[in-house]
């Protein structure tokens, strides 16, 4: 039985990420700063972006030009993206100054950094599919950058259909997977200990 792939995966998962780690009810005592709320704020904002984006997707990219409700949902999408980047960048600053990659947490940092870059790409395609003056201007200007390194041959920013599909399907899927992996890694490895803390009588004594 232990040779079964399914059983192996289950055993590994249960060993490395038991439900107590996934949904903890306690945290190390050092997790005591407002800087720790920016990760969860980023996740919450992503949820609002996806929620407002799904409503926009149901009505199509031109809905918000003609409907007041559409304009409001578009505004939710716009402002949640602005907040998302604010929270994510503060989270990134915080994790940098904590050197949060210490203790085998390189992959946690790296998935977060890749998610940041994927977010920029996703937001960028969003600006291209607004079907307004912004998207005209941005697509005309941005094509030169992509064309200059040959990427424009496959990623054509002036093709509305292509950008719309990437914006609502491929890029959010990539960002979603990165986010889930990032969060699972945080839960698996735990929150990085403070920089100046080290094995000492103080910590050992409280074992």
């Amino acid at each position, binding site marked *: 039985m232990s040779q079964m792939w399914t059983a192996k995966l289950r055993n590994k998962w249960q060993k490395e990420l038991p439900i107590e780690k996934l949904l903890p009810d306690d945290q190390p*005592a050092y997790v005591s*700063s407002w800087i720790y709320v920016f990760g969860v704020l980023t996740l*919450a904002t992503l949820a609002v972006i996806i929620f407002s984006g799904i409503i926009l997707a149901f009505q199509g990219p031109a809905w918000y030009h003609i409907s007041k409700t559409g304009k409001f949902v578009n505004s939710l999408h*716009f402002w949640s993206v602005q907040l998302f980047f604010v929270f994510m960048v503060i989270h990134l600053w915080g994790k940098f100054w904590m050197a949060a990659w210490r203790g085998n947490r*390189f992959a946690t940092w790296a998935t977060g950094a890749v998610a940041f870059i994927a977010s920029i790409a996703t937001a960028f395609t969003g600006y291209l599919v607004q*079907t307004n003056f912004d998207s005209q201007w941005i697509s005309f*200007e941005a*094509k030169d950058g992509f064309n200059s390194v040959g990427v424009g*041959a496959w990623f054509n920013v002036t093709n509305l259909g292509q950008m719309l599909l990437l914006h609502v399907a491929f890029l959010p899927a990539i960002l979603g997977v990165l986010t889930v992996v990032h969060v699972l890694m945080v839960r698996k490895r735990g929150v990085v200990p403070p*920089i100046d803390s080290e094995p000492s009588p103080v910590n050992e004594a409280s074992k």
Partner: protein
Amino acid sequence: MSTNKEAKAEFDAAPWAGKTKRYDIVKEGTIALVFVFVLTVVLSLIMSSPDEPPLTFKGWAVSNPDNLYATAVQELAGTSGTATYGGPYNNASDGLNVGPLWLQKWAGVTHPIDAANDFVITPLSTQVLAPEIANAVATWKSAADSQRQAWATAYDDAITKVEGKLSDVAVGAYGPVPVLAQGLTDMAKSGALDAALLSQGGFFQTDNTKQILFFGDGAYLDDAGTAANLQGGTWGMMNETGRYPGQAWLWLYSFWYQIPPFNNGESKPIGANADAYIMVIMGLLSLGLILIPIIPVIRNLPMRIPIHRGIWRQYYQSQGIKRRKM
């Protein structure tokens, strides 16, 4: 020292064995979600969101018909931005390069554009034309390439010579070109060019490449971008229409376009190929962001600049942990 370092690394990686505190992750997530949702609703109610209507060929033809006319002549003469672009639209130039890497050329022509036909002749051909224009289209279509080139180039040069002031253009052997350009300008004024460029004779259409490229060849889009402070040379990549916040997260990408040699198109090799160099630089910097944990000096900054003493202040105080000298 190295054993200390190893012990510290092991300690950082090990499951926490020290003091803990109660922590309700589900409650925290719920509060965050409600907080963010309310904040988004409030910002949306107060400020709405930017939505400048798109510009149209009709608007261009009405507000600046001479410029549209001159641009149509450039498309016929093969001197417009699109006609001379290179990959992925045509083979008119090698495009940009980074040293020996001619990536733009190597990617090939994946979105072929024949500026004269796609932007001028084909759209005109979709219309029921006045006899004079129909004759001009027929004359153009039946002429040899060299003859077309001679007519259009002569007219394009004549317009350039008088700096676009059409009434001052000298008489010359321009063949059907003036009539074609006037026909296209009139068609644009009626609003028909917008639709004809998009459909390109088809029914379903989701690709705006041809419209946008033709549009950008003239001065209309460019002037609107300048008026809205969106030009790349003045940090426009970060900006939004109106007073809304823009893509401030593109600040670093935008930064390179502001400084020499990137801001000087005449400067070879880098300024002349700024788009390509900046793309490569940003690719490398993005890789750098991902690899910060293994980049010497940078990965030690958090230990050297003690912002962490603020972050973990409460814990350090309660445990009496002093700053370790690096």
